């Protein structure tokens, strides 16, 4: 609701402030100032931390009332995107748009030096700058001073102006910075805290632990009440010499999250051979897994990914996990986290269907000439690649235009003060102020396309069982009356089965995607390949016809770095072996793999150790990230209702693991009862 209020207050500011003689940067700062001065605020008396925006009760109605009581002149938002762009986004899930929020700023600077420290930096740079840079620094000053006054509205006067003296002050400071990022971006998505166990450590060590517990628990309540499910907190990491950086605050955070059992912030455990065993044992926990906590990163693989990307060795160890999967240099980097999204099934449909999608007409005029027939698989593959490149080119260009518009219309002097080197350069973070900048370029359905191509290669070109036209017709008809054909497709090896041939196809597509996307990277912008989907693989799949990997019409795409049909058909080691045939060090935009686990597996120390060894092996083999979901009774009930969707559900029975679907109905009911009762 407060973001809605911020957006309305912006319109009010535009109506009330005379900005005609102001630069864009100063105008934005003054709008920001207006918003902070007029945002409805309150103090939640049940929480020690101050900083609540909106209304304490009846928020929805009161927000609507506020908007009604403060009418603004309607501002027509002219649609500047082309019909081709809109269609690609809405009907094919391919897009290029600058992503708001999703930022992980330099909280360390605020905690250790206070806003006054940053103001000093701004003042110093103003002495040396002229023109637009000087102007931008002025805007930064306005923004920071507005922020200080905003804190004062809550009676918070010492921090964030001054460095925090203890952990409660550090948390208060961090919370206000975090809150106002959302206001300044008009979006509260994925604002991450990053390496809090490092930058708040000194403050933590100066504070009474019991007092810290009370404040941190309130901090967790605040984060969760504001509904940012993708706020990320890192645990550990390594220093430049490879020494582990887990400390007392890392353990403290793990313990408190375990106590409160809250889904946010996402705990990101940075695993390497020196990760403390005790902390590992704390994190491999059934209760945590059941709420999807924590997520695990392979530290060494992530460092390699950042090196491959070109981050100087002096900076790589400073990386932080951002949001649910990105790797960034915290406080120094802008990550356009959904900047480019390309569905790999669109170009495949074009290649298979004479330059047309299976179900709709495409507005975009393609340069690639359709090919009527293919003499061999390689000819088809080349055609697929040509279409893929065209769509990628289009979406990257769309992102570039969107970013250009955003840079002119919605620059953010406040956030820019918190991302280095914007102050030193006197520039906004989007136009080159930040030291690093990445545009995450998502390859949706890459594995679906790979498995579909594998099907075609096998069944058409190698075994000659079917013609390409027959397969395409079957897919267009959602495999109706084609049970035998469909069954054969399903029984073919797929990525995730640990079968070399199928994996090789996925690895090939991955290499080609990386090569194409990487060619766009330059000194200023890194285009970061990723297979991350969050949960958008579901709405994306709804837009597409059936595909030749066996995915039926409207069914979800592969989730993140997982399998095309969303099933782990063999076992976890096979899944992991498949996953590392893709060189994940080139997918520095993030490559999470999701696994489901019967949490009774980790009820014993032996089970925990084996799970730990499984993860560590995967990371050593080159895996970047694993997300674990602990099975619940609800999952089993869903499996009873829709067994086809849960073919890979494995449960533990008396020291033995078996597929839930293989059990008789009465045993399934018994299992559900046992899960419900925690036995």
């Amino acid at each position, binding site marked *: 609701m407060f973001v809605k209020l911020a957006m309305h207050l912006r319109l009010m500011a535009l109506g009330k402030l005379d900005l005609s003689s102001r630069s864009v940067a100063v105008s934005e700062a003054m709008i920001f100032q207006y918003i902070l001065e007029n945002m409805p605020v309150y103090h939640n008396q049940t929480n020690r931390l101050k900083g609540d925006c909106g209304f304490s009760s009846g928020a929805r109605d009161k927000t609507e009332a506020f908007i009604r009581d403060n009418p603004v002149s309607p501002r027509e938002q002219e649609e500047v995107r082309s019909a081709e762009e809109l269609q690609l986004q809405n009907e094919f899930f391919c897009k290029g748009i600058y992503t708001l929020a999703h930022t992980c700023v330099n909280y360390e600077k605020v905690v250790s030096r206070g806003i006054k420290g940053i103001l000093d930096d701004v003042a110093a740079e103003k002495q040396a700058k002229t023109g637009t840079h000087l102007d931008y620094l002025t805007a930064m000053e306005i923004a920071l001073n507005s922020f200080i006054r905003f804190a004062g509205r809550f009676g918070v006067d010492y921090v964030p102006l001054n460095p925090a003296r203890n952990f409660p002050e550090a948390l208060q400071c961090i919370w206000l910075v975090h809150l106002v990022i959302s206001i300044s971006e008009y979006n509260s998505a994925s604002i991450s805290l990053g390496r809090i166990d490092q930058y708040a450590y000194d403050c933590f060590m100066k504070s009474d632990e019991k007092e810290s517990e009370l404040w941190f628990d309130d901090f967790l309540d605040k984060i969760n009440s504001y509904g940012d499910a993708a706020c990320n907190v890192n645990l550990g990491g390594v220093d430049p010499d490879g020494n582990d950086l887990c400390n007392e605050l890392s353990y403290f955070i793990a313990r408190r999250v375990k106590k409160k059992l809250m889904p946010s912030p996402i705990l990101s455990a940075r695993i390497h051979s020196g990760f403390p065993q005790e902390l590992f044992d704390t994190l491999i926990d059934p209760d945590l897994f059941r709420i999807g906590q924590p997520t695990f990163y392979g530290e060494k693989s992530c460092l390699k990914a950042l090196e491959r990307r070109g981050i100087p060795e002096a900076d790589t160890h400073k990386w932080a996990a951002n949001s649910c999967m990105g790797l960034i240099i915290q406080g120094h980097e802008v990550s356009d986290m959904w900047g480019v999204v390309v569905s790999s099934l669109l170009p495949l449909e074009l290649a298979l269907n004479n330059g047309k999608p299976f179900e709709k007409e495409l507005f975009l005029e393609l340069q690639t000439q359709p090919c009527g027939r293919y003499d061999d698989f390689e000819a088809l593959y080349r055609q697929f690649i040509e279409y893929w490149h065209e769509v990628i080119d289009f979406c990257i260009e769309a992102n570039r235009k969107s970013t250009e518009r955003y840079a002119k219309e919605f620059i953010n002097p406040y956030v820019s003060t918190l991302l280095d080197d914007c102050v030193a350069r006197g520039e906004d973070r989007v136009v080159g102020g930040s030291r690093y900048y990445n545009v995450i370029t998502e390859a949706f359905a890459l594995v679906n396309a790979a498995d579909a191509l594998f099907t075609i290669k096998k069944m058409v070109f190698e075994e000659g069982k079917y013609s390409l036209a027959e397969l395409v017709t079957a897919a267009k008809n959602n495999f109706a009356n084609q*049970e*035998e054909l*469909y*069954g*054969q497709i*399903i*029984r073919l090896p797929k990525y995730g089965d*640990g079968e070399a041939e199928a994996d090789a196809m996925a690895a090939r597509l991955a290499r080609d995607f990386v090569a194409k996307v990487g060619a766009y990277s330059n000194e200023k912008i890194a285009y970061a390949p990723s297979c991350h989907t969050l949960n958008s693989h579901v709405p994306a799949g709804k837009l597409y016809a059936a595909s030749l990997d066996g995915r039926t019409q409207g069914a979800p795409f592969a989730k993140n770095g997982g399998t095309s049909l969303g099933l782990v058909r*063999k*076992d*976890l*080691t*096979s899944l992991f*072996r498949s996953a590392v045939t893709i060189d994940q060090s080139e997918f520095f935009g993030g490559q999470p793999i999701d696994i489901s686990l019967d949490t*009774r*597996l980790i009820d*014993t120390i*032996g*089970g925990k*150790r*084996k799970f730990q*060894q*499984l993860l*560590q*092996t995967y990371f*050593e*083999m080159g895996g970047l990230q694993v997300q674990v979901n602990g099975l619940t009774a609800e999952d089993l009930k869903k499996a009873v209702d829709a*067994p086809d969707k849960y073919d890979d559900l494995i449960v*533990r*029975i*008396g*020291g*033995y*693991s*078996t597929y839930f*679907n*293989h*059990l*008789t109905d009465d*045993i399934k009911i*018994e299992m559900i009862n*046992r899960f419900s009762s925690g*036995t």
Partner: protein
Amino acid sequence: MSKKVAGLVFDIKKFAIHDGPGIRTTVFMKGCPLRCLWCHNPESISPEREISLVEHKCIGCGWCFENCPNHAHINVDGKRVFDRDKCLRCGVCSGHCYAGALEVVGTEMMVSEVIDEVMKDKPFYDNSGGGMTLSGGEPMLQFEFTRELLAAAKEQGLHCCLDTCGFTRFERYQELFDNVDIFLYDLKETDPDLHLEYTGVPLQPILDNLKKLSDAGADIWLRCPVVPGLNDRPEHFAEIGRIAELYSGVKQVTIHPYHPLGSSKSKNIGQDYVLKDKPFADKSDIGNWVEKVSANTAKPVSSEG
């Protein structure tokens, strides 16, 4: 060592974490000399291949009705019937069952094929102290295959466990002794009469082999299935503890509480399951069983599940 020897395997399970130390791959072989009432792998008992039918997966396409060479699959008043007496176990039906309802249980595999499959997970073994476990059924029933598998695994530097019921000629254990790191040794019932009743074979040869293995310096993990109402007797637990304490080769004891998983599998292969109405063991009972065994041995005693 011959990698050209073949055997009948019904499953190769990766990420096996209950079959020895670390992360393992367990190779399950067909055939068992025992007939345990509580067997949770009934598909392992017969040394022949079998056809498993998972009813809920059948989509009624009718292909098997039309193509079974011996008309074992028939449609009776709209209901599918699988006449197993007529089944030749040729696998024609399962080869075409795209719904996955029909599957052949038992595939002939060469030693080299099995080892290639097992070796795929070597990084996981290396990181966890895991390796290969041979199980079943009873691996010693396919003795040559078991011997060659172990030899081939050792050539690859794999840690090897042998999950065995102990009912075989000791000379066979001697032949492959050097290639087995841990014997996962089943001790199902310590009363001789009840052992015969519950498993179909006498107890004494199993105890004799246990002693001989221990005397020969083997590392042995005792695995003791416990079935409420059958062998959950105080004297049985006491005897397990005594035996564990008696033999220096026994390094630990694991209680395996009964579970009705075998009931589902029996149904799939068209067999009756004697204990089909018996529920899972109660968690609180399991703790008591462990305590009772522990009271008679200093060796570690734990439970699975």
